[in-house]
C-alpha cells in the first residue's frame, strides 16, 4: 500500500491549559497508487487537520501514518521536509503563489531544495502547457485570474513528481465553472501520473469524481 493511516488521533490542549480538545479519533484507511479519494464533512470536523497529518505538516497525537512503506510518524522533522518535497504535493484553497515570482518561478520553487533539478524547467513548461498556461510563463500571480492561479498551484504541486497529492478545498475559492474545470484537471492528472490524490472538499460533485470518498463527523471517519 502506498498510504496507510492507522488509528490516528489528534487532540489539542484546551484554553484552560489542563483538559484536551479532541479533533480526530481512531482514523484508519489505506490507498494505493493511481487511486483518488475525497474527504467530506462539515466545517470544523477535522478535514484539514487530517490532511495536514498525512502531509507531515503536523504530527498525530497517536496512531501511525505510512507513506510508501515509511512510517512518517517516526521520521525526524528535517527528513520530513525532504519527504514533503519529493513525495507529496499540496494544493490549498488559496493558491498561495508568491507574488514576487513569475508563474514559471512559482512552479520551480519546490525544485530549489532538490539538487537534481536540471530537467525541472522543461518539465515545468510541459506541465504548464498541459494546463493551458504556456503563454503565461513570465506573468506574475497578480496578472492571472483566480482559476489560472489555482492551476499554477496544481502544477507547482506536481513539479517534483510526487506519489501523493493533497488538495485542501482546491475549488473553494473559485466560481462554479472554474471549479469544475479544475476538478477535471485534478482527476486527469491523477490518472495520467498515477499518483494518489486525496481531496478535502465540500463539493459533492468533485467528491463523486474520486474513486472513494469518506465523511468526517465529530472526528470519526465514516466509510
Amino acid at each position: 500500500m502506498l498510504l496507510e493511516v492507522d488509528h490516528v488521533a489528534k487532540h489539542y490542549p484546551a484554553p484552560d491549559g489542563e483538559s484536551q480538545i479532541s479533533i480526530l479519533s481512531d482514523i484508519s484507511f489505506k490507498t494505493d497508487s493511481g487511486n483518488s479519494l475525497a474527504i467530506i464533512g462539515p466545517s470544523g470536523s477535522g478535514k484539514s487537520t487530517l490532511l495536514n497529518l498525512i502531509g507531515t505538516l503536523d504530527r498525530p497525537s497517536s496512531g501511525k501514518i505510512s507513506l510508501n512503506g515509511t512510517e512518517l510518524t517516526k521520521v525526524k522533522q528535517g527528513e520530513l521536509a525532504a519527504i514533503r518535497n519529493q513525495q507529496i504535493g499540496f494544493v490549498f484553497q488559496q493558491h498561495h503563489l508568491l507574488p514576487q515570482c513569475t508563474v514559471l518561478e512559482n512552479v520551480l520553487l519546490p525544485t530549489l531544495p532538490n539538487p537534481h533539478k536540471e530537467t525541472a524547467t522543461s518539465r515545468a513548461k510541459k506541465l504548464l502547457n498541459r494546463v493551458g498556461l504556456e503563454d503565461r510563463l513570465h506573468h506574475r500571480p497578480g496578472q492571472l485570474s483566480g482559476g489560472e492561479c489555482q492551476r499554477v498551484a496544481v502544477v507547482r504541486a506536481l513539479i517534483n513528481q510526487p506519489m501523493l497529492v493533497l488538495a485542501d478545498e482546491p475549488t473553494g475559492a473559485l466560481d462554479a465553472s472554474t471549479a469544475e474545470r479544475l476538478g477535471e484537471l485534478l482527476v486527469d492528472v491523477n490518472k495520467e501520473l498515477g499518483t494518489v490524490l486525496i481531496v478535502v472538499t465540500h463539493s459533492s460533485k468533485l467528491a463523486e469524481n474520486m474513486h472513494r470518498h469518506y465523511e468526517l463527523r465529530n472526528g470519526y471517519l465514516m466509510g
Partner: protein
Amino acid sequence: MTYFQFIRKSMLFNWRSHLLVLLAAAVGTTILVGSLIVGDSVRYSMQQITLNRLGDVNYAIETGDRYFQAGLANALADTLHKPVTSMLHIRGLVKTNLSKSPVGDVQVYGIQSSFSKFWTVSDSAIKIGFDEAIINNRLATKLGVQVGDEILVRVEKTGVIPTDAPLIQDTDRSVALRLTIHAIADAHGFGEFNLRTNQVPPYNLFVAHDLLATKLDLSDRANVLLFAELHGESDPLDQIQNAIKQQWTLADVSLTIRHLENKHEIELSSDRIFIEPQVEPVAEALPLASHGLFTYLTNSLTNKHGQSTPYSFVCAGSSYLPANMSDEEISVSSWLADDLKLKPGQQLTLAYYVLGPQKRLLEQQRTFRVHDIYTMNSNLADSTLMPSFPGIAGSNSCRDWDPGIPIDLDKIRDKDEAYWNTYRGTPKAHITLAAGQAMWGNRFGDLTAIRYSDDKTSPATLGSDILDRLNPAAMGFVPQPVKDNGLQAGVHAVDFGQLFLSLSFFILVAALILTGMLFVFSIETRAEEIGTLYAMGFSSKSITRMLLGEGLLLALSGGIIGAVLGVLYNEALLLGLRTIWREAVGDTVLLLHVVPMTLAIGFVSGLVASMLAMWLAIRKLARKTISELHGSERAALLTTSKRRVNISYLIAGLTGVLAIALLLIGGIGQNAGLFFGAGTLLLVASQFALYAWLLARTLKTADETVTLNRVGMMAMTRRRGRSLATAGLLACGVFLVVAVGANRQDIGRRANVRSSGTGGFTFWAETTIPITRDLNTEDGRAKYGLETLDSLHVSFMPLRLREGDDASCLNLNRISQPKILGVNPVVFDSLHAFTFATRTEDINAEHPWLTLKSPYADDVIPGIADQTVIQWGLGKVVGDTLHYTDENGRTLNIRLVGGLANSIFQGNVLIDQKLFEQYFPSISGSNVLIVDTSLANESKVADELAFALQDYGLNLQTTVERLQAFHTIENTYLSIFLMLGGFGLIIGVFGFGIVAARNIWERRSELALLKATGFPSRTIFRLILIEHRALLIIGVITGAISAAIAVLPSVLAPGVKVPIIMIALILLEIVGIGLIVLVVVTHRTLKGDLVPALRKE
C-alpha cells in the same frame, strides 16, 4: 532559479517594509562605528599631542633639585653622536603690569641654542635676548599679551643646597625677572613642550639659560637633559647611563675634592653641605684610610655656671681626637677653655637647633664631660673643618651672619668677633663622630666631609674612583623614555570608544530591537509564503536561512550606510566634546581619525548585531504550524497553559522577593550597589509580572461584563511578545534615564562633613613656590605676613609634593606614575576624615589612615589614592603596586591599600609624610596645603591667603569647587548619557508607534466590523488608545519606580540634589510624545475606507 535569485527577488518585492529594517540596522551600525571612531580619534589626538609636546625629544633626565653642569650635555652629545641639550627648569608665576593676580604653575625653562635641534624651527627662532622670553600660546592667551609686551616673572629661588636642610636660610625664596616677550611659540614649534603626560599644554616660558642660571646663582648649572632618538644594539637607556658614567665629573654630582697639603689629607665635601647618604658608603668603601667629619653650628656652649659662648662650630669625628675619648666626652680648645674657665672633667652643655617639620627649629641640648684641652696650634684647631654654610662662610663679621637659624646679635661679644677674625669657623670643640651624628644627623646626610690620607691617592684619582663607583641613577640621573611613555599613555588613554559605546548603549539596543521588530513585521506579512514554502518541502532551517539571507542583504546595506553615517555621528560627538561636553576633555584639541580596521570592526559588529536581532526575531516564525502561518491565530493562543502562567508569576514573585531582600540588606548596610541591584531586579520582576498577566488574560474565558476598557486591555494579549517588547523597551529606557538623572550630584551641602570627599576641609591651596614654614605657628605666619589669621581659627595641613603625572579624570592619558603627596595620616585618622570606598584586607580596619605609617619592606610602602584614580586614571585595583624611582635611584614600590570615595585627592597618591622625606629628602617645603576654617571665616581667610601668598603663585579653591571640578566631568558624562539615552528613547517611542500602527493594521478587518456594527469612530479610536496607552504607562511607571529604588541612597544622601523637575519633564516628554505618536498613527491607519478589510474578513 537559485536561492540567491529568490532572495534578491523577495528583497526587491518587499522593499517598502525592508527599507525601515535597513534604516534601523543603519542606526545600529552608525552608533557602533561612530563610537569606535571617537575612541580612535581621542587616541590619535593624544599621540599627536605627545609628538607635538616632545618634538624630537625621546629621552629625558630630570634631576629635580640636583643641579649638574650644563656642559655635561655637550659631552654626552659627543659620546652618543646625537643631539643632547641641557636646560634649567623651574616653576614660576607670571603677571603683567595690568593683571591683578599672577598666572601660577608656569613652567620656566632656561634653554640653550642646542634646544633648537629638537624642533623643526630655525636657530634664530629660539634665540632669546638676555631680558627676553618666549611664551607659549596658552600663557599668552591667559595673560592677554603679545610680542613686545613686558611681563614680570617670579621663580623659586632654588639652589644646590636643599632648602629644608638644617642651617640653610629660606628667606628670599623667589627671584623676579622683568622680561619682554620676544615671541609666542605655538604647538607646531616648541610651545607645548612638556615632559609630563598630559593632553593639556602647560603654561610655558622660555628664557636664555644664562639669564635664569645667573638669577638663581646657578651659573652653568642645569637640571634637565633632553636626548634625541638613539639607535644601536644596546638599550638606549643603558647607552645614556654609560655615556653619563664616561662623561660626568664630581661637579655634576655636587661633590668637591680639595687637597689639604699641610695636613696630608684630601677632603671630599658636598656643595649640598651634607654628603648624601648614597655617596657616603661609596666614598667610605674605597681602600683608603679615611674618616668622616660632621661639623655643626651650636647656639651656645655653656659651662656648669651658666656662662656661655655663643654660635660656635663643633666638629665630630676628627682623626686627631684622643683615642680614649668616649661619646660622652668633649675636647675643647684653649680659647673656649679660657672663655668658660673649663678644666678637664667639667661639664659643658651644647645647645643646638635641629630641624622639625617645615623648618620648625627645635633647640636641643646635650651635656659632655671635658676630656682635654688642646691648644690653638693643635691639628684640631682647623678652620677648614667648617663647611661652606651659606650666610656664614665668607662673612667678614659675626654680625653679618645670615644662616638658617635666628641669630641674637646681642649675644655676640667682641671676643667672638675677634675669634672670627682670627680663626674664622675653626671649631671650638670636638666630639666623637657617633655623638655628633646622634645629635645632628638628618635626612640630607650624616657627614659634612670625608678626609683621606694623601699618601696613596691624589685628588684626581680619588675623584675618578668615587665617580666610578657611583651609580648615576642614585644621583638623580634616571633617563626616562618620555616619548614612548607618552605614546603608550595615549594608546591606553581613556577609551572614549568604549565610553561612547556605553553611553550610546540604549540607542544601540533600541535600534537593534527596532531592527528585529521591523524585520519580523516584514516577515510576518509573508507568513503565508513561509507556510507555502514549508508545505513544499522547505525545511525550517532552509526557510530561516532564506529569510536571514534577505536579512543579511539588508544588514549589509544598512551597515554600509551606517558606516558612512558613523563617521558623521563621530563628527557630531567630537563637535559635542569641543562644545557642550567640553568639560569631559578639557582643552584637548580633538582630531578626527578614521582607522579602516575600526570602520571594519564597527561595520562587522553592526552586521552581526543586526543579524542576531533578526535571527532572534524570526527564529520562532519558521517553526509555526501551517495553520498559524496561513492566518489562524487560534492555534497560537491554544498553546498557552496555566502552568506557563504560574511559572511566569512565580519567577516574577521570586525576583520581586529577591529585590525586596536586597533592598532591606542594602538599607541596613547603606550599600548603594545593593539598592541598584534591587531596582534592576524589580524592573525584571515587573516585566515578568506583565508577561504572566498577559498570559493569564489570554486564558481567561469566564463570562465577564464586556466594557471598552476590558476589550482594549484584552487586545494587548493578542501579541504578547510585541506588547512586552514595547513596554519593556520603554521601561528600560525610563529606568536608565531616571537612574542616571538622579545620580547627577551636587556635593555642596555635605562639604563640612568630615567623612565627605572634602574631609571637612575648607580650601585646597597649591603654590608654585613651596611654603617652607609651618603656617600653624606664629613664626610661620609672621614670615608670610599672615598674622591676621591668628584670630580667624584657621589650621593648615601641609602636603609635600613629588611631581608626577596628573592622574585625575582631567587627564585622558593612562598614567603610571601619578603625583605623590606626603600627608600626616595621624591628623586624618583623628578627624576620621574622608571615606574609604575600597580597601585591602590587611589594612587597619579601625584606623585605615594609620596603615600608611607601616612600610612593608625597605622599598615597599603603603599608599592611598582616590578610588577614581585607581580605577580609571591608573587602571588598577587596591592591592596593586605603583613603581617609582626614588631620589637615590632605588625602586620605590607603593602598594595601594585603600581607595577614597570621591575625594579632593583625585590625581594623587598619598603616602606618609615621614616616608616621603625618607625617599625624597631633597624636596623642600610644601606645594599643597589643605586649610580648615569655619564657614563664617571662609571669605576672610581666602582674602588673606590670596593677598599674602600671591607671590608664591597661590591657586586657592574651596574643596567644594575642587570636587565640583571633578564632578563636572562625571556630570558631563551623565549629560551625554542623558542626551544619547533621550535619542534612544525617541527611537523607542518611534518603535512604539510602529508597533501600534502594525497592531491596528492587522486588526483593520476587526475594526471595520466594529464600525459596520455601529461603533462610532471615536469609540474605536478610544479602544485603540486604551490598549496602547496602557503599554506606554506600564513601561514608564515600572521603569520609573524601579529606577527610583535603584538610586534611593543617592536621592536620600544629604548632599545630593536630585533634578526631580528635569526627570519629571523627561518622563512627561516620553508619555507626551508617545501619545502624540499613537494618536497620529491611529488616525492615519484608520483613515480611509475600512470596507475592503471587512470584505476580506
